[in-house]
């Protein structure tokens, strides 16, 4: 698989991923950082494609680029003051963050380097076969983790509903139509049941 086009694709995608990841960290406003995640995720998806992991390529696009990033952007847009470009991001924890990331990076690469990777010369299965094999594994060998994943998703769903659901007061009686017209001063000061 080490043909020249694949090599070029690999290095340019790796560059895309790394550079946009750097921009995510460096961005002045948090919403820009969120936008920079898009090329980062797409680059990772492309790396899967160059590795001929076709199903993961599409899953990465669908889940990370298509769903999780939307969630992140929505979260940013709904947070007070996170959206504006004029609220600068300040953090005094830069050094600590750098140290921790460096430590994690070094330990991860040590583990990866020590691992003996089984390199096969066998040709990877075709894309259709890959999805099929994955499905068979999910049904057969990994049936229990598959169902546990469902349980995990269920708990995420319940958590989301419980967290996002603000306790709602009973809906106020809708005022009669005439009330929407301008009224005398004293009646308008009456507290109106608006949330």
């Amino acid at each position: 698989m080490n043909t020249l086009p694949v090599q070029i694709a690999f290095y340019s995608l790796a560059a895309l991923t790394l550079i946009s990841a750097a921009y995510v960290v460096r961005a002045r406003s948090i919403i820009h950082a969120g936008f920079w995640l898009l090329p980062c995720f797409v680059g990772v998806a492309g790396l899967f494609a160059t590795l001929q992991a076709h199903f993961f390529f599409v899953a990465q696009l669908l889940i990370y680029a298509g769903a999780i990033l939307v969630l992140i952007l929505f979260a940013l847009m709904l947070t007070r003051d996170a959206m504006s470009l004029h609220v600068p991001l300040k953090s005094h924890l830069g050094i600590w963050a750098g140290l921790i990331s460096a430590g994690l990076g070094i330990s991860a690469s040590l583990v990866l380097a020590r691992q003996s990777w089984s390199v096969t010369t066998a040709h990877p299965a075709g894309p259709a076969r890959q999805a099929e094999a994955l499905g068979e594994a999910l049904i057969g060998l990994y049936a229990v983790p598959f169902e546990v994943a469902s349980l995990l998703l269920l708990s995420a769903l319940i958590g989301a509903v419980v967290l996002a659901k603000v306790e709602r007061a009973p809906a106020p009686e809708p005022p009669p139509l005439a009330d929407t017209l301008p009224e005398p001063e004293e009646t308008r000061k009456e507290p109106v049941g608006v949330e």
Partner: protein
Amino acid sequence: MPADQSSDFSYLAVVVFTFVGIAFIAFNLLLARLLSPSAPTPEKLTTYECGVQPIGDAWRQFNPRYYLFALLFVVFDVEAVFLYPWAVAFRQVGAFAVAEMLIFVGLLIAGLIFAWRREALQWE
């Protein structure tokens, strides 16, 4: 063509096509830049809010309800992605696969019903 390039080759055509598309869009935008007149006035460059002078910028907090729907979307999207390989392999396995899928989807339907009962799906 050697067999191992086959699927990369298909992606290559898609990538080429994407770049042709980007070039087409860039060409159009540039051509419009060259052809169109430019006579900016301060009024013309204000944000258009029906003729009313805009107050502040638009980058404000919005209704958190959108967030809940995005969260629900992520959950069900992951579920759909799990189901695709299942759908392809399904015919080889048969009844056991259906039972397994029933549990998988059933749990999520239970979640959906829970959200429904808690009126989380209600848009206000």
